[in-house]
């Protein structure tokens, strides 16, 4: 199983470290060529505007969108979730992958002052300590989207077939269970 981590910007190193710790072969993806042959892709946390800008430049955006539609398992954390979302509740347009039936509002939990840690209950996983950094908020989900975890009544981990997205950063806490859930999605495909 070859898992790629989009390595244009953000905390891709933390994702790579978690995947390596569970014994996987991993690959940094910065170019179209590096995307070839991956069985699943993680889009890390970072700045979505920066990543979108870099994705647009070398054809990765279009190629990823196509592969996502064809069933490539993709997991987006934070900025990655914004890039996956079909709708942004925002006055500013931003290029995205447009794959997942969720509406997301950027920085909706507030500025850095409001970044927080909290304990969640995740379906199929159980109790999970989560870190939210200037997190995007899921404000609406389509019926095709399964909610796997909520915080204060708001979905924070969601799945739609081959796509997984979280407002929080499991890569920052060294707990690999959300990653393992994603790996099962890749394995069962």
């Amino acid at each position, binding site marked *: 199983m070859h898992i790629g981590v989009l390595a244009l*910007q953000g905390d891709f190193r933390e994702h790579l470290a978690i995947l390596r710790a569970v014994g996987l072969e991993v690959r940094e993806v910065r170019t179209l060529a590096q995307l070839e042959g991956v069985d699943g892709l993680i889009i890390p946390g970072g*700045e979505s505007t*920066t990543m979108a800008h870099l994705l647009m430049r070398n054809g990765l955006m279009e190629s990823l969108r196509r592969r996502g539609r064809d069933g490539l398992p993709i997991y987006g954390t934070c*900025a990655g979730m914004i890039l996956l979302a079909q709708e942004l509740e925002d006055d500013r347009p931003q290029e995205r992958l447009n794959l997942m039936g969720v509406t997301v509002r950027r*920085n909706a939990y507030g500025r850095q002052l409001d970044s*927080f840690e909290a304990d969640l209950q995740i379906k199929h996983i159980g109790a999970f300590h989560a870190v939210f*950094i200037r997190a995007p908020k899921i404000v609406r989900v389509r019926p095709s989207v399964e909610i796997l975890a909520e915080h204060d009544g708001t979905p924070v981990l969601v799945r739609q077939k081959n796509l997984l997205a979280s407002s929080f950063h499991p890569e920052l806490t060294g707990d690999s269970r959300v990653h393992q859930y994603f790996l099962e999605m890749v394995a069962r495909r």
Partner: protein
Amino acid sequence: MEKLTGTFKVKSGLAEMLKGGVIMDVVDAEQAKIAEEAGAVAVMALERVPADIRAAGGVARMADPKKIKEIIEVVTIPVMAKCRIGHFAEAQILEALGVDYMDESEVLTPADPEFHVDKWRFRIPFVCGARDLPEACRRIAEGAAMIRTKGEAGTGNVIEAVRHMRTMNQQIRQVAQTPDEELVHLSKEWGAPVEVLKLIKETGRLPVVNFAAGGIATPADAALMMQLGCDGVFVGSGIFKSKDPDKRARAIVLATTHYNDPKILAEVSENLGEPMRGIDIAQLKSEELLQVRGN
């Protein structure tokens, strides 16, 4: 468990999200928008860029809150702002404004001759400059959640940033090889808290993100600092003191991502127009050096 805010995890966590990115100095809303559209991961809101601070002389202070608010208003990326070394009241004001990161910076005129801000008291994270590992350790012990090289700001000359990064790398290697029983001695010799040295020995790296700053002016400079092991890049005067800021900003963003790919670096370095003029460090008088402020 309740929501926990202002923890070291969320402070250092934001720095983790900025990795592989470029943080750009901006002096108004218009520049902030240009920076965001060019792909900056954050902007540093300032009254004047370092090159102009250098030229103007006098006392350099925290920016006008109105300016910072205007910049916060127009971008979705994080907004940072600088306070003077040791000026905890400026830091309190910046926290009240809701900036996302504070830079306790040698670029501004220091307010305290001996002490830095006690950064543990704040819920907003701090980045601090350092010339070597002991200095970085002291800032981390004071609560800094992110480190950057000091370099020599406002010169467009990368040599000091390189010197500081190489020094840190050498000293990290030294710590990694120091036997446990000698760490306390090293701590005393360096003036570096032993707890931080232990963390560095365990992991072989700084416990927080480390960016390059102070003199980066070209895509090649950014790639150089990234290849030396920096996690990302601050560009101060280098962008808005050049002929074509938008184009140069985009090129530096690309160079920071593709720092290991000389073909892309060659492509993005082409035809950028005049860079900022720059200063030979040897031409600066010792009292004109910003990097010696705060230790």
